[in-house]
């Protein structure tokens, strides 16, 4: 059924009546005291953040460092591309599971039904746009008129994100618009690459020193274009196919349940299953390998079947170098390399994750757990080692971390593989663990413990590399030897600790 097939007499009031009825049957809404507490909390937040925020904004005054403009602009382009991709992946138009089941197939006016979602999406886009505007002003600097330039940047940022969100909504309503969303994302990625190579330096210099009137014109044009797209997206809400909305709503429901429920790992399962369910595969013969390696081969095959993701992951190894150009401190750069390589290792341990959550298949396979774990460590070790080595080599090449730092890439790999396996095999969040009250607020130890499981092993196994980052520049020989020993010990210890 299309939303355009609205029954006579079914108008916006009907949606309001239905929602009012549902509210009356649901849990009681917050009383006056709750609203007072929420308002007071917001006022306190504004009071606490007001001064530091003003200081940060005043610190933006002055011309930007020309050496950092290109890298900063590239990061902004990447952030906007990420926003578009996330909006598209989320739906973005969706309803709660109950609304999708009961209200969507009803004769209620579709646009009014989706109005609340549209307003939430707009709010999200505005919030992201304000951050983007702040980033823009931080990158380009403020030669004069701080307030007006800040306002212009905010308008540009909000126009970009609101326009992007509108594009994603239009893409949900019709196939041709999906091409536009893809083109915009690809264009932003290309722009990021071109910018980071420094080829747009002149353009960025012109933008940074543009007179206020030019900024005003640019902001006005961007706002007008964005408003047109938003209006078009609002009109298209009627045309989004029911099936698309149900799929997006179901997916969002699963994700929300997993995120606020007991098992954030379920998000990985959902993403994996959704991906492979939509793919056409052709079987290939299994290589003749010893049993543990034959079992681990599953992860190799799975990674090999997503060459695009593999390519994107390795392209991202240039990100620490971009951060270095944007003025990142050595510790930040080292942390970015370690976090990136841990993330790369974590995407190649799907078999261990499945077997840990549901060991039925691994029992049928009957492979010794310790041997299976050792065999499954090989792929994350190779991938994280290669990623970290590339990232550190790029940092050395751009002067971010001069010297033989790339050797740490190979030497941290065993510890990162152990950490990725530990992350994959951790159980769901234990919400029965105590909540510790501190002056800064309550700390739920269950989610905290869950979040730190795996990261603890990475930090422990990479301590020599971290120590080298925190020490004054000097010879790396001792740190490298210590890192080789620490990485190997952590991996061997983790594997041996698991019983067969």
């Amino acid at each position, binding site marked *: 059924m299309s939303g355009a097939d609205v029954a006579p007499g079914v108008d916006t009031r009907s949606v309001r009546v239905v929602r009012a009825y549902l509210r009356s049957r649901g849990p009681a809404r917050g009383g006056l005291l709750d609203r007072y507490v929420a308002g007071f909390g917001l006022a306190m937040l504004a009071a606490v953040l007001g001064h530091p925020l003003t200081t940060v904004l005043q610190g933006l005054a002055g011309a930007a460092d020309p050496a950092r403009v290109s890298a900063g602009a590239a990061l902004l382009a990447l952030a906007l591309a990420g926003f578009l991709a996330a909006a598209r992946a989320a739906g973005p138009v969706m309803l709660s599971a109950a609304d999708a089941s009961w209200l969507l197939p009803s004769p209620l006016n579709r646009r009014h039904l989706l109005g609340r979602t549209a307003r939430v999406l707009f709010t999200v886009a505005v919030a992201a746009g304000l951050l983007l505007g702040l980033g823009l002003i931080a990158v380009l600097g403020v030669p004069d008129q701080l307030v007006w330039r800040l306002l212009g940047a905010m308008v540009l940022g909000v126009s970009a994100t609101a326009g992007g969100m509108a594009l994603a909504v239009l893409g949900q309503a019709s196939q041709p618009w999906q091409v536009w969303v893809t083109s915009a994302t690809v264009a932003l990625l290309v722009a990021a690459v071109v910018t980071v190579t420094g080829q747009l330096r002149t353009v960025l210099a012109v933008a940074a020193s543009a007179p206020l009137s030019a900024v005003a014109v640019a902001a006005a044009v961007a706002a007008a274009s964005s408003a047109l797209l938003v209006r078009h997206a609002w009109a298209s809400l009627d045309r989004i196919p029911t099936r698309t909305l149900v799929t997006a709503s179901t997916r969002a429901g699963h994700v929300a349940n997993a995120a606020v429920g007991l098992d954030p790992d379920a998000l990985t399962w959902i993403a994996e299953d959704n991906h*492979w*369910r939509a793919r056409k*595969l052709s079987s290939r013969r*299994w290589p003749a390998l010893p049993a543990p390696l034959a079992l681990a*081969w*599953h992860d190799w095959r799975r990674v090999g*079947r997503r060459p695009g993701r593999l390519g994107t992951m390795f392209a991202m190894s240039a990100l620490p170098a971009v951060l270095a150009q944007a003025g990142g401190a050595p510790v930040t750069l080292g942390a970015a390399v370690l976090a990136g390589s841990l993330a790369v290792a974590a995407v190649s341990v799907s078999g261990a994750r499945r077997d840990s959550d549901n060991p039925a298949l691994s029992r*049928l*396979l*009957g492979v010794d757990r310790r041997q299976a774990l050792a065999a499954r460590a090989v792929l994350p070790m190779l991938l994280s080692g290669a990623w970290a080595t590339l990232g550190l080599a790029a940092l050395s090449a751009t002067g971010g971390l001069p010297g033989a730092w790339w050797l740490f890439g190979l030497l941290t790999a065993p510890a990162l593989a152990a950490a990725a396996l530990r992350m994959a095999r951790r159980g769901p969040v234990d919400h029965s663990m105590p909540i510790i009250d501190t002056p800064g607020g309550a700390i739920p130890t269950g989610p905290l413990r869950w979040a730190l499981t795996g990261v603890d092993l990475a930090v422990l196994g990479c301590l020599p590399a971290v120590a080298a980052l925190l020490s004054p520049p000097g010879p790396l020989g001792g740190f490298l030897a210590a890192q080789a020993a620490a990485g190997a010990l952590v991996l061997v210890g983790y594997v041996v600790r698991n019983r067969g």
Partner: protein
Amino acid sequence: MAPTENRRDRLCDRLARLESVYDSIISVHDLTVELGGNPVLRDMELTVSPGEIVAVVGPNGSGKSTLLRCLAGLQPATSGEVRVFGEPPADDAAFWRRVAMLGDEPAWYPGLTAREHLELMGAVHAEARMEVEGALEVFALVERADAPPLNLSTGQRQRLSLASALLRPSTLLLLDEPERGLDAGFRARLADLLEEYAGEGGTVVMATHDHDLAGRARQISPSGVDA
């Protein structure tokens, strides 16, 4: 000598060897299991000989699955003794190399097809009972061999699970409602396949609600009494 005869001889040897080593593959004595304070199994006695097919029958909640989990070492007994191959069952690789268990649907590995799951099963076991192509034919999965298991119907996924369990070599097969999702035709075929497995020296213990499947096995109730 033809390869089939060779295999049959090997299997007969194996059965004879098993019978000489163990009088009983499974021996349960005085088994009591309480779940949340409720007795699910009480003072159960059970002995299963090599090559036997045993069907555990009874209404929902009578303890059929609990018994299977006890035999697999996945459910500790409140009191009593469970011995499988003369030892208490242990959830480790050495045990699972001899025992194949099929309970709820396993979590299929992402990014693999149905055929590749069977290939993997064959690759990790030195002497598979069937060739992958043969298993696909026996379990009527040839046409869906290239599909990820998640894209198969419930019945097809159950056939894939059964194919995985029967393709690999094992001495003891523990099945929890193997008829789940299967059509009537394939249920009859499954009974033949289990008899074939037992004929090769394997022992089957299954919880089932299927009368025909149970009719071709020694039936017991979870209380341990022959049904």
